């Protein structure tokens, strides 16, 4: 068999971020090697904080240009030496989807967003029109064509960024945790799309998706700043053991097939099966919510209708559903950030279930946003964790003790570490730590598994899922939902199915 010449070659790569006052230089890679032949799809698995985002940015020539730092080794795409190029000159060669989509969207309309890089390339207007129409159609976003990208859900934003890449169709696609927050249909569609043509794709992920088995040509594991190629066949027991050992799947995962199951219950409802009224922490009935007319583009205003949902102490409910199906809207209703147009939410207070106002729901429910940065503001981990405790009139010693306990429980860096220099996954853990300390009876984790390994997320669920609290987690991963939750409900177009 003739060896295929690699398209992307990374040889002996080393990189360390610069020193900052009081913060030592962070060495991420040393002697990292990677080869990716043209037309191949590779997945690079690494736990949070191992440098996935930095590697993407190195390949796109954004680092060290924007961050500073010391780079060594060689990165080439064909004959092109990538670090010597300016990022804007590379857009036909290298395309990157950021892990956090909100940071990459620039335009005021979805069609303008897709057209933007084509305009930069000097493509004719008629060709722009053809390419953007095709890209929006492929990603099923035509209905949002004239809408602001800011109004899209997290998954839809990622779809829009993929459409931008599709319109340009660079030679190398870098997808930084892009499959997270995408529903299973879109994931499959994307992988199918990547399989066609001669583009090379590097998908960076903190967890193993079963779809990789069908589409991925190469699997890399990145640990301690080095990469090794996985030689085992994805379906083999050795491979499953490896994934399990490294924390990319949960025990028992991987042997099943299909997309997980939604357990039986009355249509349009969630919960209500085993829990008695005595144990219930929250009951919501006949919930109705409608966004203002102009919030969803040319489509009718998005409407959420929930007949019944209840949660008992110790219960774990997983909410799954396609992008834009209303999962986050449900979460925001249950924590009082949105007020229902009709229906009632009751919470347990003084031993009985009573109707709750928005402010009462704010105090009752902890809600971990999809984007951890919206909930992390302070300069150090300690200050971040201690902020909520200061409002509980605790002594300094007690605050210190609880913070240290939380740092240890969530595996966070030392209390003086600056969150702004931590990885996305670690920031998610910090966000969870903040709410853990607040001891809310109900926790809602909105796509918390994005950016975390399954082991880390399972640990988070275990920490929050104690007998006195109830937990809802929102995810696109049916298998994860099936493995971790007592009950799984699916939302479709604003209703439980």
């Amino acid at each position, binding site marked *: 068999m003739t060896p295929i010449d690699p398209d992307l070659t990374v040889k002996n790569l080393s990189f360390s971020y610069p020193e900052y006052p009081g913060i030592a230089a962070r060495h991420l890679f040393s002697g990292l090697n990677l080869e990716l032949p043209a037309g191949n799809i590779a997945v690079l698995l690494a736990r949070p904080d191992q440098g996935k985002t930095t590697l993407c940015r190195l390949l796109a020539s954004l680092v060290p240009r924007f961050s500073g730092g010391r780079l060594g080794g060689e990165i080439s795409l064909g004959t092109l030496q990538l670090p010597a190029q*300016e990022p804007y000159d590379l857009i036909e060669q290298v395309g990157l989807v950021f892990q956090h989509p909100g940071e990459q969207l620039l335009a005021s309309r979805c069609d303008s967003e897709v057209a933007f890089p084509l305009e930069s390339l000097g493509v004719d207007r008629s060709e722009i029109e053809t390419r953007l129409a095709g890209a929006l159609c492929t990603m099923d976003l035509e209905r949002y064509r004239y809408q602001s990208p800011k109004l899209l859900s997290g998954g839809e934003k990622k779809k829009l960024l993929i459409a931008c890449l599709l319109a340009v169709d660079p030679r190398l696609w870098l997808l930084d945790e892009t499959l997270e927050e995408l529903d299973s249909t879109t994931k499959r569609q994307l992988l199918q799309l990547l399989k066609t043509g001669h583009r090379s794709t590097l998908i960076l992920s903190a967890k193993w998706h079963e779809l990789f088995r069908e589409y991925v040509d190469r699997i890399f594991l990145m640990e301690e700043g080095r990469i090794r190629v996985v030689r085992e066949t994805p379906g083999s027991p050795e491979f499953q053991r490896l994934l399990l050992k490294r924390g990319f799947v949960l025990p028992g995962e991987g042997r099943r097939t299909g997309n997980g199951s939604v357990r039986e219950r009355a249509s349009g409802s969630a919960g209500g099966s085993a829990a008695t009224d005595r144990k219930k922490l929250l009951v919501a009935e006949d919930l109705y919510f409608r966004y203002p007319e102009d919030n969803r583009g040319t489509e009718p205003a998005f409407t959420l209708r929930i007949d019944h949902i209840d949660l008992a102490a110790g219960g774990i409910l997983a909410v799954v559903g396609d992008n834009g199906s209303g999962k986050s809207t449900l979460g925001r209703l249950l924590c009082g950030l949105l007020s229902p147009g009709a229906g009632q939410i009751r919470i347990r207070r003084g031993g009985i279930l009573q109707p709750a106002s928005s402010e009462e729901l704010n105090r009752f429910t902890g809600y971990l946003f999809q984007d951890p940065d919206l*909930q992390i503001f302070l300069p150090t981990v300690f200050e971040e964790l201690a902020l909520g405790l200061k409002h509980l009139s605790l002594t300094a010693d007690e605050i210190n003790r609880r913070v240290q306990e939380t740092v240890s429980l969530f595996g966070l860096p030392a209390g003086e570490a600056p969150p702004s220099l931590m990885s996305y996954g670690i920031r998610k853990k910090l966000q969870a730590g903040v709410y853990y300390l607040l001891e809310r009876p109900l926790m809602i984790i909105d796509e918390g598994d994005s950016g975390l390994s399954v082991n880390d997320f399972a640990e988070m669920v275990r920490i929050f899922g104690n007998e006195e609290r109830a937990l809802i987690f929102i995810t696109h991963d049916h298998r994860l939902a099936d493995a971790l939750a007592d009950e799984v409900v699916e939302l479709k177009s604003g209703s439980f199915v």
Partner: protein
Amino acid sequence: MIAQVYGKRGTTVVHRYDPRAKTLLLLAFLVLFFLPIRVGYLAAYLAVVIALSGIFLGISNTLRPIRLILPILVLVLLLTPPFYREGSALLTVRGVTVLSVSGLMLALRLIIRFSGITMAFYLFIGTTDPDDLILAIRWFRLPFSVALVLGIALAYIPTILTLYDQVRDAHRLRLAVEGEVGMAAARPRKRGLFKRLREAIPVLTSVLILSVRRIPTLAMALECRGVGRKNPRTSYHTLKTGTALLRDGAIATAAVAALAISAVLFP
């Protein structure tokens, strides 16, 4: 305030009006508000701008900027007359003129000028598509980088508003404790303006930190989209051409001429 209207597509005749012609009209009104003409006439021009805003952006959207600048206008009204006491006295205390006609007229002139400029810009920004605005700036031969910076700066206003809402929600949840809601921003409408401002400081600080943190990623995002390339840039959006441009240009020219004549006839 701009966040409520900027980037929102409208279908009115002013929304569809050519942005280059609209820019000319904006400049004409700005010049007009600085001309030394009678306060009554200036007030009439201000009334025209407010009426246009009310018609094409809606009453509630029109009241929004007025409410926002109201404290400044009140300060101008209170602080200007004591420093300009020449001319006929309107109010004297122990023989000393406290309020004179010229002082009052100057205060009114400043108020109308400030309100006029604010409302003219508000109407322009609120009825102009962001992409059209960038194209119009480029049409006036300003470089793309200038147009892009202005476009991003304006587009960032609603982004900051969204960010503010999200951060306020985050604070509201995180600092909600039994007996009170830690962040008063949770119930802003029930509190006084100054209390709301004071209590919004932690949220504003967080928004500022997040905005600053986004600067390098914004720069990365721009370069990933090809900003900085040397080749000529094309445009997906287009401005009006031919008869439509001539019609809008003719209307703008006629309106500017009418404003100039009125300024001469009614000085």
